[in-house]
C-alpha cells in the first residue's frame, strides 16, 4: 500500500531503503542461501573441496535416533512450556481483570519477569531446584520422599528447564491476556449477567470465545519462544544433558555445528528449522487475515 499523497524523487527512496536492504541481504538472504547449499554438501575433514551429496544429510538426519529423540524432546518441551505459561498467564490475568483496586500495582508486580534474560531465569531456577542446595529439592525430598536431581536425572532436568522457561513467559502472556480482557465490551457481559449467567458461566461462554484470537496468537508466540529463545536457559544450566534429555533442536544445531563441526548436518538442521518457522508464520498470517475479515 502507498499513501495517496506521496513524494516523487528519483534517488531518495532507494537511498532511504538501502540500509535495510543491505543488512537483509548480507545477514539474511546470503546466509540462508549458503545454509541451503551447505545442507546438501559434506565437508571434507582433511580439507579440500566439499562434496555434493544432494539430500543425504536430510536422509541421515531423519534416520538418526539422536535427532529424532531431540525432535520428540523439543515438541514435548515446547508443549509443556507453552501450556504452563499460557494457563498461568490466563489465570492470573483473569483474576487481575476482576480486581477493582490496585490494578496498576498488580500489573507492575507481574510484568517485570519479562525483562529477565532466559539465561538468568535459568540460574534462578537452578538455585531453587539444585539437588544439594535448592530449597524446592529439599522440601520435595522431605515431604514427598522424591529424590529430585536435575543434574543427574534427565527427566528432572527437563522439568527444570520447562519451569525456568515458562516462568519468564508468564508475564508476556499476562500482558496480552489482560489487554484482551479489557477489550471485551462491557455491555456483552452485562447482558449475559441479566440473562442469569454467573461469573464462571460468563467466562466460558463469552469471555473465552472472544479471547480466542489472543489465545491463538499467544500460542504461536509461546511455541516460537520455546523453540528458539530458550537456548540461553539450556546452555547455562544443563548444556543439553544429562544424557541428551534437554538437547532441543536449536541446541543441537549449535552443538553439531560449533562443537562437533559437522557443518553439513548442522546446516540441514537449520534448514529444517527454517521450514518449520516459515510454516508457522504462514499459518499465522492466514489466520490473521481471517481475523480481520471477521472483525470488519
Amino acid at each position, binding site marked *: 500500500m502507498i499513501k495517496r499523497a506521496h513524494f516523487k524523487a528519483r534517488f531518495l527512496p532507494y537511498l532511504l*531503503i538501502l540500509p535495510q536492504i543491505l543488512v537483509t541481504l548480507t545477514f539474511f538472504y546470503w546466509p540462508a542461501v549458503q545454509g541451503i547449499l551447505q545442507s546438501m554438501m559434506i565437508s571434507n575433514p582433511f580439507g579440500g573441496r566439499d562434496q555434493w551429496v544432494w539430500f543425504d544429510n536430510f536422509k541421515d538426519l531423519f534416520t538418526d535416533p539422536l535427532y529424532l529423540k531431540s525432535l520428540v524432546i523439543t515438541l514435548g518441551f515446547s508443549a509443556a512450556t507453552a501450556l504452563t505459561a499460557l494457563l498461568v498467564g490466563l489465570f*492470573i490475568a483473569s483474576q487481575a481483570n476482576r480486581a477493582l483496586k490496585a490494578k496498576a500495582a498488580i500489573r507492575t508486580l507481574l510484568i517485570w519477569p519479562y525483562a529477565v534474560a532466559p539465561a538468568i531465569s535459568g540460574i534462578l531456577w537452578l538455585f531453587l531446584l539444585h539437588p544439594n542446595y535448592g530449597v524446592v529439592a529439599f522440601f520435595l525430598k522431605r515431604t514427598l520422599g522424591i529424590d529430585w536431581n536435575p543434574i543427574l536425572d534427565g527427566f528432572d532436568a527437563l522439568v527444570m528447564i520447562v519451569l525456568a522457561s515458562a516462568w519468564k513467559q508468564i508475564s508476556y502472556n499476562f500482558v496480552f491476556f489482560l489487554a484482551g480482557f479489557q477489550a471485551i465490551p462491557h455491555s456483552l457481559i452485562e447482558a449475559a449477567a441479566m440473562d442469569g449467567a454467573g461469573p464462571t458461566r460468563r467466562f466460558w461462554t463469552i469471555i473465552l470465545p472472544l479471547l480466542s484470537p489472543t489465545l491463538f496468537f499467544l500460542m504461536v508466540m509461546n511455541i516460537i519462544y520455546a523453540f528458539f529463545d530458550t537456548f540461553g536457559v539450556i546452555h*547455562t544450566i544443563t548444556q543439553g544433558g544429562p544424557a541428551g534429555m534437554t538437547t532441543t533442536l536449536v541446541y543441537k544445531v549449535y552443538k553439531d555445528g560449533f562443537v562437533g563441526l559437522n557443518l553439513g548436518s548442522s546446516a540441514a538442521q537449520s534448514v529444517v528449522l527454517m521450514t518449520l518457522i516459515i510454516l508457522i508464520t504462514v499459518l499465522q498470517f492466514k489466520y490473521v487475515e481471517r481475523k480481520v475479515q471477521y472483525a470488519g
Partner: protein
Amino acid sequence: MVEKTPILDLLTYIFLVLGICVVGFPIFYALIAATLPIEMVSRVPMPLLFGDQFGANIQAAWHRGNLGTLLFNSFVMAAGITLGKIAVSMLGAFSIVYFDYRLRAVAFASVFCTLMLPVEVRILPTYEVAANLLGPVQVLVDLLHIETLVNWFLQNDIQIRLELSLLDSYPGLILPLVASATCTFLFRQFFLTVPEELCEAAKMDGAGPMLFLRKILFPLSKTNIAALVVIEFVYGWNQYLWPLLITTRREMTTAVIGLQHLIPDVDDIPDWNVALAGALIVMLPPVLVVLFMQRWFVKGLVEREK
C-alpha cells in the same frame, strides 16, 4: 464487575497475591541469598532472612565476573541494536509508504520475507558471513575470474583475498541482529494510519520529503519509538546465542553470557551468594527500563500483534 460477589472477590485477591508471590519468589529468594555469607547460603534450607553481606557479594561478583567491562559491552550491544533497528526500519518504512518508485514492490517483498525468521535458525551461515563480511564479494571475484583479469592487465601475479572479520567486535554483535522486518512492519502500519492531509499540507507548503519526515512524521511517531526502545533494548540486552558465537575473547562477551562462569559446579565451593548477586546486577538494567517505561512498553507489546 456486574453483580456483588464478595466471596469470589476475596478469592480473586487471594489468588492474585498467591500469583504475585509465585512469580516473585525466584527473585526474592535470590535477593536473600545475595545478602548472605557463604556458610549460610550453603545451609539447606537456607534461612529466609536478609543478611549483611550484600555489598561484599556484589563486589566479589563484580570482580570475578569482570562485570564492569561486560556490562559496558551489553549496553553498547543493546543500545546499538535499538538505535540501529529503529533508524533502519523507520527510513525503510518511510521509503515504502511515501514514495512511488519502480522497485518498491520488490523492496517491500524482500524485506517482509524475513519477518519472524530469528537468527537462531541460520546461525552457522550467518556466523560465516560475520567471520568474513566480504565473503560474498570474494565469491563474485572468483566467479568472474577478476583475479586473472587483473593479473593479465597488470602483468603481475596477485592473489585477491578480501577479508573483513566482525568477530570480537561491536559491529559483529550488533549488525546481524539489526536485520529484522518486525520494526519496519510496525512503522509501515503506523505510517498508513497518518492522515493524508498532513502530507498534502506539507507538500503545499513546499516541504521536501526529508523535512516532512523530520518535522511531522518523527514527532508523531514518538510514542511508537518509545515502545520500540523498551522492547528492543530488552531484546538486545538478553541476547544469548549470537554473542556466544561471535565473541571468543572473554572481555568482548556480554554480561548475560559472562554470568555462566559465576555458577558453581558440583565440585566447586558452593558460592551461590556471589553467583546470584551477579545475576541480580545483570538483570537490573532491563528490569528498570521495563518498569519505568511500563506504559509505552505495554502499548508497544500489544500493538505488535496487529
